[in-house]
């Protein structure tokens, strides 16, 4: 039964449901008893996962389809009522438990008082533990500390997030007692799995893992394993168990989609959010995604090594300091694999360390700054009309600050839906072009229309918010369509394997040497219905991307995947995982850099190889008009630019993902420090610009309107006399984005813009593809065909100042179309350098290039900064365009003059750090 079936079956028809207050659901079970309450509770939780968090625009589709008729609601407390009365009660005290073998815990329930559960609930929880304990011990290992654990009823005051998480455990409740704080769940299934979860937390005793990725993640995976084990728990409805697990314990088949950097951190619930109520229409931050992803991540290990957690816990019990030693835990993780499967001690085909670093949810280091993540959910039923690829896209947007708090941000995003070619911007409907975000949550539900003659295709979703970008690949038309409404259960996208002439690209899925599926990849997307018991079980599968031609099959890429039960979505990127090694990438002193590879690690000291206490790292924040200095800087991602002051020459050795398709970089209004996310030089004709809901434009078209007319690279300056390395530098106009370097790009669009960097070749077509179908509002630009709009001046000269093996330049010019003031299409400002070597045209501002209206006589004031007294410098003037009858260069410090026509030079010895020259041009030709 689908979640909608459950919902409509029990929420509306079977049970009387009332909403006494926010987040409290009262269910009257007078006529239906426990079955109805159980179904209701699980339905609501599944509902929360799938629909309740969508905003109205996203749900309209379902409302119109008649499938949703109730207000959307995310309860975190469910009260059973019988003829309007609650079914709580209190009886005698009881202390019950199993035998007191070493490592056993005994549960203690209050029988009276505010922390007492109803008798029936106490009995139920105790029986859950009694029944599940052998399996719990097998999966998780026996409790680290024997003794009594109090189970307290915190239904009335447990935080919403903790209730959704399934209760929590305190090693010391303030009175020296170990305590489980647990709410009242009306559903036996929800109560069972959440109680197993909480007791497993108690199993960690007084020495829990320090980070939630281990503490909560291991427990959640173990809980999944326990409740799925036949006979491990009381007789429960397996469908409802799975439904409840899907709500809060696992992301099931969507792991690849949700594996995003924003999940990382040491704590799943930020301190400031622990007691904040969750509202309907919001997840209340990233915590739920973190809980679910952590369960799914560790479940991947359990699928190959069912006793892995038990073994890891054993190591920790022998060496308690490991709880706060992630590298040590990773080493022990590998040790466990060696012990449990010496013949092939890998997880998903990788060493434990390699696997671990690819799971963003297991990034235990904290990083600050803005974060955005996007979670897609395919919508597969009640499709009608042009529905071809319908997805709910939910965004979580927040900021982590140094205190560990997370602010639930509001804002607005204009999602960009790229078709397979990255040329056409798909506009499914006006309501999906804008995402309003409040309380960290926003959503849209676009339908990607049939544009490939009924064939599926890969849609790339870019979600820019401020200067953050989240991206997912979606297989439009590969899951369920109007023409083929039966939902497929194996689907996904392929990047990096375009078919060659005479070949087709296919995905082959096998398990234990047995073929499960062999299906075509069309326009980067694939989907098939397999629906066999073998496939739908949680197991290890091998997904290979092959190229099939007359000569047979060529395997391009194989990924080992430990899939959860049910569907499987895969984001297959052929050849993307790489290690980038560059000697002296960070030379001693100050330099500007960006990574052309998206690192697996988020923690800056790990990425750049400098200890946190010695790291000087900065990124300019145009919204605050100042630099963020580490540790306030965000995680290092590709496309970002940073300044670093390296204490010694440092090599770069970073593992991450490269891209074989264009990559978007989000810009805020003002100056943005960015880099090319592509590992090659990208010229501006390979960069397109997208603004709000607008058409993609060429870089040239955008100059002076969306972007400043010049972007700047950073050139390290002369060596500091004492440190012996450059501590300053020079900004110089750039014409292309070189990999590894950072650039200042100025965004003029008040709402910001997105730059799309296109590799020279890759898994996309470079010309516009034919449009088939009924795409509502196709927006396109052919990057090759739009001519530049650069304005050519009548006369232009380049001024170069050199000395100490460094040089800096600026431009002056004249044009018929120029004005005396700043003209964004002609003029360009210079970023100041804080002491760096720089020549600037001084006017109403500092110019890198100043073009004025044609006149018979014009004076340009040149200021050279960053000079070293006593050092000899040379100024070279070189006319590049047009002709000027007479040019005079005047040194205001010495009174020296130099006269020339097309060009010439002057040498001077600096007397101070900054000197002024005047270039007089005697009119344009």
């Amino acid at each position: 039964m689908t979640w909608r079936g459950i919902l409509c079956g029990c929420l509306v028809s079977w049970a009387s449901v009332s909403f006494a207050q926010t987040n409290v659901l009262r269910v009257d079970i007078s006529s239906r008893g426990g079955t109805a309450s159980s179904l209701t509770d699980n339905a609501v939780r599944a509902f929360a996962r799938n629909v309740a968090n969508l905003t109205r625009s996203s749900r309209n589709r379902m409302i119109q389809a008649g499938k949703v008729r109730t207000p959307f609601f995310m309860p975190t407390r469910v009260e059973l009522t019988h003829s309007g009365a609650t079914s709580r009660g209190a009886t005698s005290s009881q202390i019950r438990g199993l035998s007191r073998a070493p490592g056993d815990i005994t549960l203690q329930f209050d029988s009276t008082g505010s922390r007492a559960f109803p008798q029936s609930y106490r009995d139920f929880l105790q029986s859950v533990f009694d029944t599940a304990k052998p399996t719990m011990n097998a999966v998780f290992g026996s409790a680290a500390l024997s003794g009594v654990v109090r189970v307290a009823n915190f239904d009335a005051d447990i935080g919403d997030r903790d209730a959704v998480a399934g209760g929590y455990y305190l090693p010391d409740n303030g009175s020296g007692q170990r305590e489980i704080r647990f709410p009242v769940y009306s559903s036996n299934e929800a109560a069972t799995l959440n109680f197993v979860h909480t007791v497993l937390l108690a199993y960690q005793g007084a020495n829990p893992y320090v980070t939630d990725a281990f503490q909560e993640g291991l427990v959640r995976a173990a809980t999944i394993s326990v409740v799925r084990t036949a006979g491990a728990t009381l007789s429960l409805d397996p469908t409802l168990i799975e439904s409840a697990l899907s709500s809060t314990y696992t992301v099931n088949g969507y792991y690849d989609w949700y594996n995003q950097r924003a999940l990382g951190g040491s704590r799943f619930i930020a301190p400031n959010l622990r007691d904040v109520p969750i509202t309907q229409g919001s997840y209340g931050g990233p915590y739920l995604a973190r809980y679910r992803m952590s369960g799914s991540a560790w479940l991947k290990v359990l699928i190959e090594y069912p006793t892995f957690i038990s073994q890891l816990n054993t190591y920790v019990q022998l060496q308690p300091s490991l709880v706060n030693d992630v590298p040590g835990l990773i080493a022990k993780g590998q040790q466990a694999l060696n012990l449990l499967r010496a013949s092939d001690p890998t997880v998903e085909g990788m060493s434990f360390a390699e696997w671990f670093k690819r799971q963003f949810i297991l990034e235990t280091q904290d990083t600050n700054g803005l974060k955005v993540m996007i979670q897609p959910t395919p919508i597969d039923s009640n499709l009608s009309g042009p529905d071809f690829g319908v997805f709910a896209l939910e965004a979580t947007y927040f900021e982590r600050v140094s205190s560990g708090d997370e602010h639930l941000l509001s804002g607005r995003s204009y999602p960009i839906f790229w078709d397979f070619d990255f040329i056409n911007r798909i506009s499914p409907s006006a309501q999906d072009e804008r995402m309003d975000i409040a309380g960290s949550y926003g959503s849209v539900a676009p339908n990607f229309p049939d544009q490939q003659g009924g064939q599926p295709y890969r849609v790339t979703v870019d979600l820019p918010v401020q200067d953050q970008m989240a991206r997912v690949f979606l297989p439009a038309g590969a899951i369920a369509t109007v023409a083929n409404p039966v939902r497929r259960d194996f689907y996904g996208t392929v990047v990096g394997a375009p078919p060659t002439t005479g070949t087709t690209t296919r995905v082959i899925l096998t398990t234990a040497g047995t073929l499960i599926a062999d299906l075509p990849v069309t326009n980067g997307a694939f989907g098939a219905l397999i629906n066999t018991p073998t496939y739908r079980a949680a197991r290890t599968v091998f997904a290979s991307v092959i190229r099939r031609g007359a000569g047979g099959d060529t395997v391009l890429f194989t990924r080992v995947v430990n899939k959860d039960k049910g569907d499987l979505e895969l984001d297959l990127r052929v050849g993307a995982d790489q290690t980038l090694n560059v000697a002296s990438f960070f030379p001693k002193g100050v330099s500007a850099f960006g990574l052309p590879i998206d690192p697996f690690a988020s923690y800056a000291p790990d990425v750049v190889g400098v200890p946190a206490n010695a790291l000087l790292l900065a990124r300019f924040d145009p919204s605050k008009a100042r630099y963020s200095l580490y540790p306030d800087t965000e995680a290092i991602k590709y496309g970002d630019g940073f300044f670093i002051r390296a204490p010694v020459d440092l090599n770069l050795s970073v593992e991450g993902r490269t891209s074989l398709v264009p990559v978007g970089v989000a810009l805020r209004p003002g100056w943005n420090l960015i880099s090319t996310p592509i590992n090659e030089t990208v010229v501006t004709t390979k960069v397109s610009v997208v603004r709000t809901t607008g058409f993609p434009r060429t870089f040239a078209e955008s100059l002076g309107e969306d972007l400043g007319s010049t972007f700047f690279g950073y050139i390290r300056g002369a060596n500091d006399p004492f440190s012996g390395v450059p501590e300053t530098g020079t900004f110089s106009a750039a014409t292309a984005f070189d990999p590894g370097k950072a650039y200042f790009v100025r965004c003029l669009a008040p709402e910001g813009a997105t730059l799309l960097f296109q590799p020279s070749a890759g898994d996309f077509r470079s010309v516009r593809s034919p449009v088939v179908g009924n795409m509502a509002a196709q927006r396109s630009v052919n990057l090759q065909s739009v001519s530049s709009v650069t304005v050519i001046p009548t006369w232009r000269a380049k001024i170069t100042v050199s000395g100490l093996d460094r040089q800096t330049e600026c431009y002056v010019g004249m044009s018929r179309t120029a004005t005396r003031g700043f003209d964004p299409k002609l003029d360009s400002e210079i970023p100041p350098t804080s002491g760096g070597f720089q020549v600037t045209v001084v006017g109403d501002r500092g110019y890198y290039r100043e073009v004025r209206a044609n006149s018979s006589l014009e004076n340009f004031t040149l200021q050279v900064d960053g000079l070293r007294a006593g050092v000899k410098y040379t100024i070279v003037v070189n006319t590049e365009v047009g002709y000027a009858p007479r040019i005079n260069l005047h040194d205001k410090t010495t009174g020296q003059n130099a006269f020339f026509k097309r060009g010439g030079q002057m040498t001077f010895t600096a007397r101070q750090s900054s000197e002024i020259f005047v270039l007089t041009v005697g009119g344009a030709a």
Partner: protein
Amino acid sequence: MKAARWVLLTLIVLGAISCGGGGGGGGATSAQMSGRVLNVITGGSLNPAGQIQVGDARALTDLADGSFSLAVPAGTTSLTVDTRNSSFGVWVFTVPTVTGTTDVGDLWVGPEKVTVTGTVRDSTSNNPVANTTINFAGRTAVSNGIGVFALQNVAYATSSTASFAGITGSATATGYFLSSFTAGNNVAAAGVVTVDDILITPSTDSNPPSTPYNIFGKVSPSNLALGTTVTVSQGGTPFRQVAVGTDDRYYVWLPVGTYTFHFANGLHSVPDQTVTITQANQILQRDVTLN
């Protein structure tokens, strides 16, 4: 809300088409106002739904996302939100003049009302900027001659500031880029939340970003500043030297530690300054006057 906007827009367009050239008659011109009402405790919608009222026109906010849409007389400039929540009460918002279809944005309500104040400064000069329009949580204010603004009756919840801290406000002034800001970690004291200075950047910018630094300062008097060298030592060993620029300032980026700064310009100097950086994200200012 977006769907509603779309439908409404469609209806308006269809209505306009169907009306053709006929009509006329009295009555105020109708306009459509839409927006969202959000709970500052949760960051989400009100439950029970809030009631929006303009004159006799009423609408309830959406339970899921707090959105509303209401036909109002053109020219409407205020609305009332009855939260139907005893602790939140009734709120009155001044909104942009409603004409045609107008989105009035997010209107935040909560159990408390505070004043949000701050100063708008030019990022290039640090000078205050007057006449900057500040929008935050559905409230609007304009900075005065010294760049100070005060937004009255802003929704707040002492019990939970997570959503308040995430409300994104905007600052707009002629000749400047739109700038966004949040209250961040600033909380209310005596009913006032003072936000960090809002730095806005001229759209015809003459002073884009410099390179990073964490210690800076101004050297006075101005006629001695240019040409001054600043030598930074640690443990008696000089290891960095920077020059004072034409803005009379010096900038240096140093790791955590204690440093001695020596300033000299010919015969002019100042007693050495000791500066201690305890955190890499700390920014310190040390101004000196040469003698």
